[in-house]
């Protein structure tokens, strides 16, 4: 199948604003599914609420449009009962890391075989550009006109520390890299997180002096540094920059593999206490 075969053309044009990065992520995901030859029947897209949470409207696979912040909880349930499915959770930074932050750390800890794709546009797009848990310190938003006093999460480090099998970051400018990271993540048996730095020109861009879609793309081009090169930068050169590429992970067994052992032991009547294998 080609990427376009996964697109619900009847739902086009996209509902997102002019220059919004969400469509670039959507397209990369469709290409990744095509490259992996995923069947539409065995793929489940789970979303919450938010601009990026509308992505399932355009993807011709199974989908569940859940509530704000709970996409990962729903995706966890789907994968747990049917480990043969390919399960994707598509979320904004609000969905994934602000209201949904607790589900994120536990999905990573559990190492459930779900791929989380986070469109990190550094604010709440759908509700009018309020700051979220990833808005950088000092950045302006509709609820931080004089600069955000809090600092934002580094989602990749957070998910990596909590035990994710694969964590990676790209930007909407780096669309080819994004596609290959998605292919890697979807192929990973444990929990994978792909953070995509994305443009919200109408809110984050407008509040922070970059309202033009092409200028926002230029900003991503200039701020992102391949991980190997980022490590060599002096501390002052790291200011305002971030690494992209595969950023970490661990090869612990995935939840489904461990749970299959628990089921086997339980079915064999192995007694009350089950040695299901240790973590590390």
């Amino acid at each position: 199948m080609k990427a376009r075969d996964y697109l619900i053309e009847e739902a086009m044009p996209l509902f997102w604003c002019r220059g919004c990065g969400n469509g670039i992520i959507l397209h990369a995901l469709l290409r990744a599914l095509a490259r992996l030859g995923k069947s539409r029947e065995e793929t489940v897209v789970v979303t919450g609420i938010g601009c990026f949470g509308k992505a399932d409207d355009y993807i011709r696979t199974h989908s569940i449009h859940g509530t704000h912040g709970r996409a990962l909880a729903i995706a966890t349930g789907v994968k747990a009962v049917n480990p043969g499915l390919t399960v994707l959770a598509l979320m904004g930074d609000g969905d994934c890391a602000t209201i949904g932050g607790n589900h994120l750390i536990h999905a990573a800890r559990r190492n459930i075989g779900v791929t989380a794709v986070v469109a990190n546009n550094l604010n709440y797009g759908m509700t009018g550009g309020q700051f979220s848990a990833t808005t950088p310190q000092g950045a302006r938003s509709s609820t931080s006109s004089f600069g955000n006093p809090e600092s934002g999460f580094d989602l990749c480090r957070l998910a990596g520390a909590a035990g994710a099998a694969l964590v990676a970051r790209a930007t909407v400018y780096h669309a080819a890299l994004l596609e290959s990271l998605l292919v890697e993540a979807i192929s990973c048996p444990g929990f994978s997180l792909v953070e995509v730095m994305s443009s919200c020109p109408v809110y984050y861009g407008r509040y922070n002096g970059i309202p033009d879609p092409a200028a926002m793309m230029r900003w991503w081009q200039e701020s992102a540094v391949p991980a190997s090169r980022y490590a060599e930068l002096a501390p002052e050169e790291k200011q305002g920059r971030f690494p992209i590429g595969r950023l970490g992970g661990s090869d612990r067994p995935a939840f489904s593999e461990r749970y299959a052992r628990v089921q086997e032991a339980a079915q064999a009547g192995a007694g009350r206490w089950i040695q299901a294998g240790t973590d590390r």
Partner: protein
Amino acid sequence: MAKAKKRFRVTLNRAWCKDCGICVAFCPAKVFEAGERGEALVAREEDCTGCQSCVLRCPDLALEVEEATPSQAAEAVTHGG
């Protein structure tokens, strides 16, 4: 006779495009141009190298780039494109 240069067809879907200007700003071969009202135009299809970078970065999936069939390429040459 010199080997004919590869030709590409650049299709812009007007109904999906939102004139964001990303293709105009980033095409390495400067195939696109902004019209009078800021609308995106395929101005120099003949310069397209088939790199696909506009296809990957268009936020509205409005672009397609395909290699031209030999007859389409010949027609473009006759028309001075």
